[in-house]
């Protein structure tokens, strides 16, 4: 995927140009103009840095639950509750777990087994906005609602305002249901 490389390089060059640009210096008499290396938050940017979270230092540890690459998040589309005051399986204080949910199946690299994971949303506060991830293994359109993630699973709660998403293991995949 050369396009990604090129994109990165282009941005790096753009920043470098900005650094050396004489006009940047001219603006120093005013406030903070030169700091605007702001790229928009991308709908598909899986990096925790995208919306403030763990620093994206280039590692992608499948055992670090504050990163999109964490193995349980293989079909998680939303903000990681681990970056929002919750844990892998608990909602942040001040929020409510969703009453309905959908299911993914993820491979645990530690024991080599596949697990069924419930992607509950946490609801009712303002959106957390941190550590956005967009993983879609086994995800299907809305006519397969039980495995669909482009919808707000807070929909059944008293307040359906989305905050973040947890990943709760329901059991091993091979041994049931599948």
């Amino acid at each position, binding site marked *: 995927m050369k396009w990604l490389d090129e994109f990165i390089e282009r941005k790096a060059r753009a920043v470098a140009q900005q650094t050396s640009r004489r006009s940047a210096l001219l603006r120093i008499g005013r406030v903070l103009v030169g700091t605007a290396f702001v790229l928009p938050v991308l709908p598909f940017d899986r990096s925790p840095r995208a919306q403030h979270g763990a620093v994206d230092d280039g590692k992608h540890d499948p055992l670090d639950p504050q990163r999109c690459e964490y193995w349980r998040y293989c079909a998680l589309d939303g903000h990681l509750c681990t970056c929002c005051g919750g844990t892998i399986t608990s909602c942040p204080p001040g929020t409510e777990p969703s009453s309905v949910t959908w299911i993914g199946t993820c491979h645990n690299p530690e024991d080599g087994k596949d697990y069924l994971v419930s992607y509950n949303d946490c609801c009712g506060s303002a959106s957390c906005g941190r550590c956005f991830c967009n*993983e879609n293994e086994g995800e299907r359109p*809305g*006519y397969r609602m039980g495995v669909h993630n482009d919808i707000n699973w807070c929909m059944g709660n008293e307040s359906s305002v989305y905050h973040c998403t947890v990943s709760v293991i329901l059991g091993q995949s091979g041994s049931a249901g599948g």
Partner: protein
Amino acid sequence: MRATTILSGGLALLLGLGAARAELGPEKLTINPLKPATPHRIYLTDLVLGHVIDGRIHVIDGDSFDYLGLIPTGLFGLTALSNDSSEMYVATTYYTKRNRGDRFDLFEVYDTATLELEAEVEIPAKHAQALPYKGTLTSTSDGRFVLIQNSTPASSISIVDRPAEKFVAEIDTPGCWIMLPSASNARRFSTLCGDGTILTITLDETGKAASQQRSGKLFNAENDPLFVQAESIGDTYYFVSYEGMIHEINLGGETAVTEATWSLLDAADRDGHWKPGGYQLLALDAKAGRLYVGMHDEARDGSHKFPAKELWAFDINTKKRVQRIEGSNSIAMSLSDEDEPYLYVYDGMTTEFVKYETLPALKPVARSGPFGEFAGLIELH
């Protein structure tokens, strides 16, 4: 310090200044009229997940790429232009206390000539709080009834009588999703179901379901599901599957009928694991007979929302690819409504638009600045 002689309530104090010998002013504060629409006016629906109660539609001039204004859409608002583009429809959720209190849902009509609210209709408090895919909110072909996808997560459809500004019916559609109106029958629409069938619903003149007919199994929702975004010529809808099969399905009759299926891929494409991907990944030029699809290689389970590495153009008569070109990371695309249409593509990495000429061949001709934060649906006026 120059301004401290102006006391609190400065404007009132200063209204007499018109007589001052100023080279500029005094000026009048007005409301800028919206520039008349062109076929290149873009509506970009932005869910703003990080501040999810504050969704909006960005209205953008697709020639100058000037920002023209916005329409607020609130919490997971669904959006769609009316058939004649004179109105923007929004179905959204409110709470009596912003993010708490009691929920109520409204269907709202905004005038696309002014961006002002024209009408609002209370609807069942279950509109689908979904990514606003095309077809989650739509109209019958005559514009009389507006169809709104619900989810609790049980699926149903709310029917609003647009001229009467009234909610008239709710139709249960368990396990089905998206609404696809028939062009030839203004009371008919269909919806895709999780068992691979298509459910066709015909309304009566009051908007209630007069009949519901389920097709046989037309697609494999398990192994090769159809993306829900579909484009049509007359009653024939073009769907694309995860594996790159085009399904041409006629939705004009009482029961949906497959007219043709064909593959986007040749042997070399399969070797490279090329697959379709994105959110709004298809565009169809009925007049020229061209179909455009966003494609990426090295596809794997879960890559079906990947931005386009390439755009592929097909001749829908010969069912052959006629062009492949760099894809601008498209995650959404739409053709302008004109004889020689432009294809507008939304770059999911930079959030910029890329404008392509389409005839005789796709050719990028302009790129915008960034717009939106969490967007994946484009409509053109």
